[in-house]
C-alpha cells in the first residue's frame, strides 16, 4: 500500500487521531503524505474483526468539501459522470467518478445531498488526489454560482463490520433511533443529538455493514476511545486494503487513474448516460468505448483467484493463452493474500474478450513459470460470505 501519487518531501501530516494510534500501539507509516497506522499488531486479526465483528479505521486524511449555492446541483451534474439528480432526499449519497476531458478517471468520490432545496452538497474524496481534485472543482466551477469550502478541521472514522452499528449504538445510546432508521448509502445530520459537525452515513469500503462518522477534530479522540471501550477494534490501512480487495472495490492510483476509462475498472454502472446531460469527459468516454469495441481492444476488470501457494501482487502481468497464436496480456492492479479466503486474490484488467475457455496464468516469480489462476466476477466476499463456488 505504498502510494505512488505522493511526490512531496515534507514531513507527513498527522490526523486528529495520531495520539490515539500511538496509544493503541499502531505501527505508523507514511500514506499519501499522512502518518497513519498500517496495523496495530496484526493486520490479519484486524481484518477478521471487521468481517466477523466490528473494527474502526481512521479515514480523516480523506478530503471533505462542502458545496453551497444556487448552482450546486448544475455544477455537480457537469463535474460528475454519475447524476446527482438521483439524490432525492437530504442525506442520500452517490458514488461517482470525476473524469477528465479524455474520459479518464481523475478521482472516485462520494457526494451527499445535504438539504432538501438541492443547494447544499458534501463531497468526500481521496487524500492522494486532493490537489488535482480541487483544481478540477475550480475549473468546472467557472460560471456557476457556488462556494466550495474544504473542511480540514473535520475528522472521519469508519466503523465497519456485522456488529459495528450495534456497538456504535451501545457507545452512543442517543443515536440508536437514527442508526436504526439509516438505510444503506444514506447519511444523517447528528447536530441536534450530538453537537455541531457530527454526521453519520451508512457507507464503507469493506463489503460489510457499517457507517462512516464525521465529527470535529476535537471530538475524535474521545469518540475513538469510547468505541474501543465498546469492543470496536482499531484496524489499520493494511486490513482496509485486504477488505476492500475482497469486496472488489477500487483503490485510486492502483485500479484506475487518469489513463483508465470507467468501463475498464468496473465503474460502468456509475455512468449516468440515459439523458443528454453534458458532463466532463462524456464525449471522449462514449467514442472511445465504441472504438475499442470495433477494434476488439476493450478491457474489463475481473477478479483473480490463486488456489496454489504464492501471492499475486500489483503490477504482475496476466497472460492469456500463453505460447499460442492468440496470446494476450492484462495486468494485476491490486493483489494480496485474502485473509477470508486463505488464498491469494487480485483485481486485474484483462481483454474484454477473454472467456471461460481461455487459459489465464500469472508468472509469479518472473522466471517463466506460469501458474493457472481462476477468473472470477467481483466481489470475492460480501457480508462475510464468499461470492463464488469453490
Amino acid at each position, binding site marked *: 500500500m505504498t502510494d505512488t501519487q505522493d511526490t512531496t518531501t515534507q514531513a507527513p501530516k498527522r490526523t486528529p487521531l495520531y495520539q490515539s494510534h500511538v496509544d493503541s500501539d499502531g505501527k505508523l507509516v507514511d500514506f499519501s503524505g499522512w502518518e497513519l497506522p*498500517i*496495523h496495530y499488531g*496484526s*493486520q*490479519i486479526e484486524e481484518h477478521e474483526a471487521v468481517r466477523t465483528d466490528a473494527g474502526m479505521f481512521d479515514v480523516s486524511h480523506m478530503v471533505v468539501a462542502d458545496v453551497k449555492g444556487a448552482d450546486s446541483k448544475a455544477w455537480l451534474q457537469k463535474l460528475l459522470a454519475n447524476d446527482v439528480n438521483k439524490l432525492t432526499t437530504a442525506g442520500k449519497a452517490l458514488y461517482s467518478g470525476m473524469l477528465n476531458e479524455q474520459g479518464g478517471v481523475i478521482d472516485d468520490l462520494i457526494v451527499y445531498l445535504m438539504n432538501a432545496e438541492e443547494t447544499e452538497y458534501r463531497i468526500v474524496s481521496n487524500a492522494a488526489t486532493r490537489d488535482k481534485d480541487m483544481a478540477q472543482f475550480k475549473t468546472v466551477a467557472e460560471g456557476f454560482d457556488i462556494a466550495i469550502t474544504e473542511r480540514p478541521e473535520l475528522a472521519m472514522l469508519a466503523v465497519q463490520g456485522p456488529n459495528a452499528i450495534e456497538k456504535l449504538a451501545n457507545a452512543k445510546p442517543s443515536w440508536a433511533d437514527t442508526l436504526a432508521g439509516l438505510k444503506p448509502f444514506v447519511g444523517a445530520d447528528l447536530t441536534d443529538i450530538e453537537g455541531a459537525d457530527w454526521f453519520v452515513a451508512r457507507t464503507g469500503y469493506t463489503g460489510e455493514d457499517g457507517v462512516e462518522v464525521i465529527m470535529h477534530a476535537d471530538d475524535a479522540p474521545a469518540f475513538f476511545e469510547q468505541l474501543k471501550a465498546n469492543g470496536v477494534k482499531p484496524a489499520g490501512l*493494511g486490513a482496509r486494503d*485486504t477488505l476492500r480487495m475482497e469486496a472488489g472495490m477500487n483503490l485510486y492510483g492502483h485500479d484506475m487513474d487518469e489513463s483508465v476509462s470507467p468501463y475498464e475498472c468496473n465503474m460502468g454502472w456509475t455512468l449516468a448516460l440515459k439523458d443528454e446531460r453534458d458532463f466532463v469527459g462524456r464525449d471522449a468516454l462514449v467514442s472511445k468505448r465504441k472504438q475499442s469495441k470495433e477494434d476488439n481492444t476493450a478491457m474489463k476488470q475481473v477478479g483473480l483467484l490463486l488456489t496454489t*501457494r*504464492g*501471492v499475486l*501482487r500489483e503490477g504482475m502481468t496476466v497472460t492469456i493463452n500463453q505460447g499460442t497464436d492468440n496470446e494476450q496480456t492484462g495486468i494485476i492492479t491490486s493483489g*494480496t*493474500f485474502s*485473509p477470508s479466503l486463505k488464498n491469494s486474490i487480485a483485481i486485474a484488467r484483462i481483454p474484454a474478450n477473454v472467456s471461460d475457455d481461455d487459459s489465464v496464468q500469472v508468472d509469479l*516469480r518472473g522466471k517463466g513459470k506460469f501458474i493457472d489462476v481462476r477468473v472470477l466476477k467481483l466481489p470475492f466476499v460480501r457480508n462475510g460470505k464468499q461470492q463464488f463456488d469453490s
Partner: protein
Amino acid sequence: MSNIPAELKYIASHEWLRLEDDGTITVGITDHAQDLLGDVVFVELPDVGDIIALDDEISVVESVKAASDVYAPISGEVVAINEALEDDPEIINSDPYGEGWFFRMKPDNIADYEALMTADEYENEL
C-alpha cells in the same frame, strides 16, 4: 525494540543461525525481519538434501505486504526443514527464534559460521 538473542549469529539480510550440539546449524529470520514483513502467509522452503551455496535464493517468504527471498547464509547441505510452517506460517511472527525456524543445515566449513555477525554487530546494522 527488536529482540536480538546474544547467543545467535546473524547475516545482513536478517537471518539468524544457531549452532546445535550435533554440529548442524538452524536458520530462521530475525524478529526485525518478521516485523518488517508483517503477517506471514506462505513460506517456500528448500528440500532436505539440497546442496546450497552462499547467497543462493533458497526460500521465499510471502507476507501480507511483500514477497521476500531468503538466502543461503553459508554453504552446506539442508538436513531438515520446518514442515510446521506449511500450515502455520504465522508462527514466524509469533516465535521467530523458536518454533518459527526455517531449516537446518550441515555446514561445509564451520569457520564460515564463526565469521558471521554477532548480536551486537547485527544490532549496529539495523
